[in-house]
């Protein structure tokens, strides 16, 4: 049985990096991880085409926050019936403010927590194959490949513009 090997390629140019990413995807190679110092929508289109699940979590947070805070207001007003200027015990119109603030607060908290956890953070170290150059000016692709095909992948990566290719990067 052939074991899998990790091959890391460093790219200085974004167009070559994206082109290589497309080629690898088209040819069915297993892309273990992709690194970029900046956010690239094209990279996301290729590697993570599905919308992020953080959207759903944010919506959920908004619903919980809005209804939760109004629920708390209802409980508080029913528990302690303070009649102000003859207004009703449960004054729904001013509570639009309460609902709004609760919605925004919890939606934001859920949006933050969801992106952190869905990104695999916080983590004590860094991801396998990570190089400090990836937070600088280099782009990286980590390919998982059967050990007998590493030479083929190395050649492909170099043809696509990688300035450096490392085998066994993990």
């Amino acid at each position, binding site marked *: 049985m052939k074991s899998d090997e990790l091959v890391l390629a460093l790219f200085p140019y*974004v167009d070559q990096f994206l082109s290589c990413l497309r080629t690898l995807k088209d040819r069915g190679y297993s892309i273990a991880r992709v690194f*970029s110092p*900046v*956010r690239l929508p094209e990279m996301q289109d290729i590697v993570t085409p599905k919308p992020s699940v953080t959207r759903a979590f944010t919506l959920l947070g908004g619903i919980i926050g809005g209804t939760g805070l109004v629920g708390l207001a209802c409980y508080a007003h029913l528990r302690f019936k*303070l009649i102000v200027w003859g207004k009703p015990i449960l004054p729904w119109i001013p509570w639009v403010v309460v609902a709004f603030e609760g919605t925004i607060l919890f939606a934001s908290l859920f*949006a933050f927590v969801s992106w952190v956890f869905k990104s695999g*953070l916080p983590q004590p170290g860094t991801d396998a194959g990570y190089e400090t150059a990836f937070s600088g000016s280099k782009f990286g692709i980590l390919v998982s490949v059967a050990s007998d095909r590493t030479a083929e992948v190395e050649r492909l990566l170099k043809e696509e513009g990688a300035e450096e290719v490392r085998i066994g990067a993990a």
Partner: protein
Amino acid sequence: MPEIEPDLDVKFEDVDRQVLGTLWRPSLVFWFVAFLLFLGFSYGLAAWGYLVATGMGSTGLRPPGVMWGIFLGNFVFWIGLAHSGTLISAILYLFRARFRTSINRSAEAMTMICIMMAASYPLIHLGRSWIFYWLFPYPDQRQIWPDFISPLMFDFLAVSTYFTVSLIFWYTGLVPDLAIIRDRTVGLGRRIYGYFALGWTGSASQWHHYATSYLLIAGLATALVISVHTVVSWDFALPIQPGWHSTIFPPYFVAGAIHSGLAMVLTLLVPMRRIFGIQNIITNRTLELIAETTLLTGGILGYSYVIEHFMAWYSANVFEHQTFVFRATGYYAWIFWLVVFCAIICPLFFFFRGIRTSPIWLFVISILINIGMWWERFVIVIQSLAQNYLPYQWGFYWPNWVELAWTLATFCFLLLAFMLFAKFLPSVPIAEVKKEAGMPMHKGGLYREE
């Protein structure tokens, strides 16, 4: 046609070096100035301690007339300053205004500092500020719950939500930059920055979730930035007080808040970019665009002043009419005309390109706008109360040393905290600036616009 300067004039590979170069080794002058500011802040803390020990009678407030003094005027002022950060970060992000890229981090930091300072004022004004936690809705042994229809409760919810969301937004934007610093430091610095970088590596998966959440939080913060000062304006618009009870207050407050906030951004950025030598990142063009936005907000504010006076006359309400005549001709009239000059007339000089592209003029006019906007809150809060319905309530208020000491302290804290921020955290969002600086291309043509 005059040539338009670019928003950025820096190469992709130089961004790290230049921005990180602003962080290391604070000079002796830096620590000396920081110490002076700390002394100013400590003086204010001592004054607050004196106020706690002696009670609210040690302020310039005197019943039955003006019972809302500069503590609440300052609250509105600081909340207003806080608006520009979210405006620049969130609203301009949604509008894809690229000039925001180089300044959003500083503006966000300013926002957070300003919210902290703003929150201190209602706490002091409560009188017994050490039991502020009674505002929290929780079942204690007294079985008394806060009233959820009180503007004080609205304020509490709005300000705490605004601070939390601003903090989340600021920190989310900071994470990739903290990873950059982590990778370029050693020892304790690496551990501290690494801890807050959460293990960020810039993988495709991380960028994917990050970008979606950042956009969503920007959208949420946009709604919030409009709402916060609207809620603050209701503190005034809900009572049937002449000079306050007006439906124009929410948009008027929001415009004024953004106006003062943009001016404060100019006040802080003009010297900062010179000290750090980052004029090629925060360019004259960026400052010019802020000045142009100030023209817009100043126009809205001037229009609001005119409408306020017009409605006081047109409504035929004798109390409203009297309040606004008093505003323009009474014993606080000099303050009103100072506000008109500083906040409305001075920004009009930005119509001249030579002035709005000159950092010195921008700095001078931004300070004048801030002076005007501080006094504007004095006019709204204090002048409106100085001549109320009943003559027995009429009075003259002037802040005493306790109130002025804490006011000074909050300005010192703003400058101190901003200096520390600019020295220990990247004041320019590195990852975002890199993206705008132009990607390194071999042939080009692949990168698409978002």
